[in-house]
């Protein structure tokens, strides 16, 4: 089984629901976005077009972040998920320089959303899982997957722009969408075998 995601750019309306649900699920500190939505423009006057581009870790099959990690902290977990073992990471940040999708963040200092007011009870509860001095990234909500749920960004996408499933199963919804609508990757030239596909807007 090789897990993958398909993002339908025609459906995405840029509500940031994925970004916020990811933050809520993982309790990531300020400045860390496992899931983001980029706003880009294409074309020229008089036919410009705004593109909404949700991005996240592509969980590449040939992940350069895994290759460059000196401690094997970045590793392949079950079903092709690329994850970081926080207890092994030394914070050298080589993986950040290797990821063509720049979706890794270095947690250099504990910081709270309300500054001097200190952490909220929610932040206190969630910040325990994010040690300082290590790199952080999306892990496709492994805890949720273990419970049989979809990743938070998929479950909470109001427009149902995200589909998650097994790329090796030719009958899965993700395989069908990629085949029928010519799914494409970002930066295929990097040769990393990304497992996030996009459907044209």
């Amino acid at each position, binding site marked *: 089984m090789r897990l993958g995601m398909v993002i339908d750019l025609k459906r995405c309306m840029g509500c940031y629901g994925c970004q916020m649900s990811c933050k809520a699920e993982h309790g990531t500190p300020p400045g860390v976005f496992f899931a983001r939505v980029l706003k880009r423009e294409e074309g020229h006057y008089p036919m410009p077009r705004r593109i909404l581009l949700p991005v996240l870790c592509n969980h590449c099959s040939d992940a*350069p972040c895994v290759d*460059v990690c*000196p401690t094997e902290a970045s590793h392949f977990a079950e079903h092709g998920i690329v994850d970081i073992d926080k207890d092994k990471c030394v914070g050298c940040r*080589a993986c950040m320089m290797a990821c*063509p999708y*720049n979706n890794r963040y270095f947690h250099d200092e504990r910081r709270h959303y309300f500054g001097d007011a200190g952490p909220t009870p929610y932040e206190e509860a969630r910040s325990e899982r994010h040690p300082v001095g290590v790199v952080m990234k999306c892990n496709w909500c492994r805890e949720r997957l273990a419970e049989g749920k979809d990743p938070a960004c998929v479950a909470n996408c109001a427009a149902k722009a995200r589909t998650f499933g097994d790329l090796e199963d030719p009958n899965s919804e993700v395989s069908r969408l990629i085949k029928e609508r010519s799914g494409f990757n970002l*930066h295929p030239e990097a040769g990393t075998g990304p497992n996030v596909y996009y459907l044209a807007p």
Partner: protein
Amino acid sequence: MSDYRYEQLIEDLRGDYRPQREWGEGKGILMVIGHFLVGVAGGTWVMSSIYGETYGLMVAYLLGALGALVHLLFLGRPERAIKMMRHVRTSWISRGFVGLSLFLAGGGAYLAMLWLSPGQEGAPVMLARLVAGVGTITIIGYMGFCYTASKAIPFWHSPLHPAIYIAFAVRGGIAVLLVIAAATGTQSGAWLLQLWTGVTAVVALLFAFEIHGALSSGNIAAKWSVRDMLSGRLALSFYGGTLALGLIVPAVLLSASMSPSPVVMALIGIASAGGDFFMKLSTVKAGVYLPLLLPSRR
């Protein structure tokens, strides 16, 4: 993360061309200093071994030890550094860590034997020299490959980068020997200056090829990096540090006198090493992430 760094990160994430700031800014400057010191240490060890310059070996060892310390200070979790030996199969950082350990172990043993019984040649001395030699070659080479392995930064992702770092290490070694020669009078200054001129020409040529390659066949991010370095946020560091300090000042000093005095030789060495540091700082800080854009054909 300070408020300033947080605001800067948010601004960077909004832009098309996100500069990398983890290596080269804030605490990340330690990474550049560490690479500079280790590179010069490797070059100095090589040059000193060739010319039998014991003071040079000692300086190389001290620079290597200092470089290792600075590297450790850069890490987010330095107490786990020993784990960096795990992944030598694919990670250049891991190889560099092993190389630096060999250099410090072998070099330390060799210098200790040299100090305890000068002139002695035996199996332990040879072994120590061999271990230090393997470590030296590794530390000279690994840095460039670390950058080349960075697929996110097209400007660094160039096959010329390792060659440039190796050439800069040799130039750094000659610069240190110039300073030592000026202080001790033990080396032929004229020969070292000729060598410095030749290696500097190679360095300049390689650097020019890399810039040309980025501009002619690099992608949009590589071109953005070159623009940042030549006419953008890093122009002062590049022109003032790399070119003026590292090239023009030594060239003027060199051409001003036919047989340079020890003071001039030392100044050339210091300026050259200073220029090398700014070259590393400029190229590291010029790194811009590959922008996330939809492919034009889809």
